[in-house]
């Protein structure tokens, strides 16, 4: 469906630039819209609406209005067909989105070898995308899992030196396995003496974690590392709380917990009293701090007043993706004097630095990965002014510390 653009103000229309086509610029987006993970599409849509409105009311991109069409990633058998449709039939000139790592890997050869359109990934987090491919048309603006997990290892090594036994749980697919591999390998270098429980994996959308929780209890860890996300992350915390896991462990780390959707679902009532619960993510609405970084403040306030909630990370990354495209196109236009080709936009995106709600993001030349700093924060309940628990005691890891060099990864390619 279309996120219909708001009418363009007259003055923007008047200033038509030479070499710029007059028809609207179409961008194709894909996220989960229906089903269990439909909330991600919803978050993306909200941010896109905002971005499109802002851009169009100030004259569009080089005078072209922006239109975004969305397709549902939940139509599992037809992901690539639907992507192709947006480009070949609906005339999308650029693509953004993609939630699932599996889909992003499938999509890569199609975009690179067949469609040849600039594609900005806003969610899927597998290191393989940027580390194992020689990307030309594809970029990832969102933080991926590796820096967050490496930061987690640093956090443990620096702050929780007393850790002896570690247990882990993750979703039962590539992301879960990779996440554990990265964290454990990174941590083994820093704290070689810890012992590890055989990692556990639960299928996506698991309802009942009791079995996993009791298995952890039988091992008796003092730290649990969990890469569960979304509803699973919330369910786990709630059930672990009532099954007493947080009474016997000291630390609980989840690289995906710092998502407002998850925190909202956890609710103040389920924040454990005893153990320290730490979370991270691709964006945290209170970071960079509003007083020093007004862009984030404006984004958060606008989002809050428009939708009545604090922006989740997918909203921030999708929002940034549109602005990254805008910046790249404008940069390329300045260089060329005409509407840029796909390759021109690629060239403009490489090395581009763009200010997003999550802070300045630099897109690396070598692997097309957007880099920015990583946060870890401690879960705090009953924060005044917020309807859900928030992250407190933020630990910031500069991207230089935690991003592997381009094309390097703990995960096996291929």
């Amino acid at each position, binding site marked *: *469906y279309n996120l219909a653009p708001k009418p363009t103000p007259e003055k923007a229309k008047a200033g038509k630039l030479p070499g710029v086509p007059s028809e609207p610029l179409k961008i194709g987006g894909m996220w989960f819209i229906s089903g269990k993970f439909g909330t991600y599409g919803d978050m993306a849509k909200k941010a896109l609406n905002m971005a499109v409105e802002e851009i169009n009311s100030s004259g569009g991109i080089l005078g072209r209005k922006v239109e975004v069409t969305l397709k*549902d990633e939940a139509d599992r058998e037809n992901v690539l067909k639907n992507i*192709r*449709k947006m480009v*070949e039939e609906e005339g999308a000139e650029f693509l953004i989105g993609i939630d699932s790592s*599996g889909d992003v890997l*499938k999509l890569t050869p*199609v975009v690179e070898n*067949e469609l040849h359109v600039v594609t900005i990934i806003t969610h899927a987090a597998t290191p393989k995308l940027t580390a194992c491919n020689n990307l030309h048309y594809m970029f990832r603006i969102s933080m991926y899992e590796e820096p967050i997990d490496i930061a987690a290892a640093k956090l443990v090594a620096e702050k929780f030196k007393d850790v002896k036994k570690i247990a882990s749980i993750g979703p039962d697919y590539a992301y879960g396995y990779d996440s554990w591999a990265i964290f454990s390998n990174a941590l083994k270098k820093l704290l070689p003496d810890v012992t590890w429980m055989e990692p556990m994996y639960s299928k996506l959308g698991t309802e009942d974690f009791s079995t996993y929780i009791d298995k952890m209890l039988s091992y008796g860890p003092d730290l649990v590392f969990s890469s569960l996300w979304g509803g699973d992350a919330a369910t786990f915390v709630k059930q672990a709380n009532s099954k007493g896991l947080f009474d016997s462990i000291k630390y609980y780390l989840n690289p995906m917990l710092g998502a407002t959707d998850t925190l909202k679902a956890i609710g103040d009532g389920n924040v454990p009293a005893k153990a320290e619960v730490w979370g991270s993510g691709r964006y945290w609405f209170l970071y960079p701090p509003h007083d020093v970084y007004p862009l984030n403040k404006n984004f958060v306030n606008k989002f809050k007043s428009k939708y009545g909630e604090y922006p989740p990370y997918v909203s921030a990354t999708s929002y940034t993706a549109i602005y990254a495209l805008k910046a790249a196109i404008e940069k390329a236009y300045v260089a060329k004097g005409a509407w840029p080709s796909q390759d021109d936009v690629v060239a403009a995106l490489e090395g581009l630095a763009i200010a997003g709600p999550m802070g300045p993001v630099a897109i690396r030349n070598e692997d097309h990965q957007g880099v920015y700093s990583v946060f870890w924060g401690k879960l705090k309940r009953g924060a005044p002014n917020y309807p859900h628990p928030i992250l407190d005691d933020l630990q910031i890891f500069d991207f230089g510390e935690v991003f592997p060099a381009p094309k390097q990864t703990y995960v096996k390619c291929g």
Partner: protein
Amino acid sequence: MQSESEEVSFEQIAIAVGIILLALVPLAGRHMTHLVASALLLSLAATSFNLLFGYTGLLSFGHALFWGVGGYTLAVMMSRFGLGYVESFVMAVIMSAVFGAVIGFLCVRHTRIYFAILTLAFGQMFYGVAVKWDFLGGSDGIYGLPRPFNTLELYYYVILAITLASLFILYKITRSSLGLSFMAVRDNAFRAKFIGLDVSRVRLTSFIISSIFSGVAGALYVLLETAISPETMLWTHSAEFVFVTLLGGPRVFLGPLVGGFIYSFLADVAMSATEYWLLVIGVVLVAIVLFFPHGVLGYFLKWREKR
């Protein structure tokens, strides 16, 4: 009432026009080509499913399994063993037959809901295997397969040719004495024993043929989509075969084909139009049951007969 010969010629004209239109599809652009190609494959799978359901009376709720077997075999042969298109495709056909034989052997002793649930169980089991087994690419599946001839248009003609040939073979089967034995078993398995039919064997034969052509559709789809993932074997995909068939009409040979096209275009349009596209499909399904229980094509033929 029209005379018999006129009726035949009407159908022949309709089919001829249909084939010509299908041959012209690439003129309508890449997306249309893609859409029609995938509609053809869905239709082929549904038609082969319907050999088992409409003709033999067994409702399989796990038929996407064979789509997956065909698809995964092709993908594995190409990506892991480096076989060519033709060899991989032949292997896909063989594996679909082998899986059909083994799973069919275990399932055909059951009928009705038990058969449906048992086939569903096998489908889910193999979904589980595909998710867990790295050799099959695990949850990511296998991707980045090169399309034959490197152009969509030429590959479309491959799909069109193989689909039409498969449909022709399936049609011939339904008009053969074997097809007749399927229908006899469907109508009255009890009596079928007393005319000397080995009911289990008849059912198994139908099951194997049906899995082979579902496998063919799956194998062809892999190269159209250029990837395959475990979700293709989930029961919701199997359910798609069922309702595509019912949508078109299970008692008419071309019913699943009509249903496949209607469904594919409906989903395509609905998704572009609204975020609640599944709701649209749901409403259509409910309406079909309430107002066109014989399927769209079945209804059309009835209506024409009445005139």
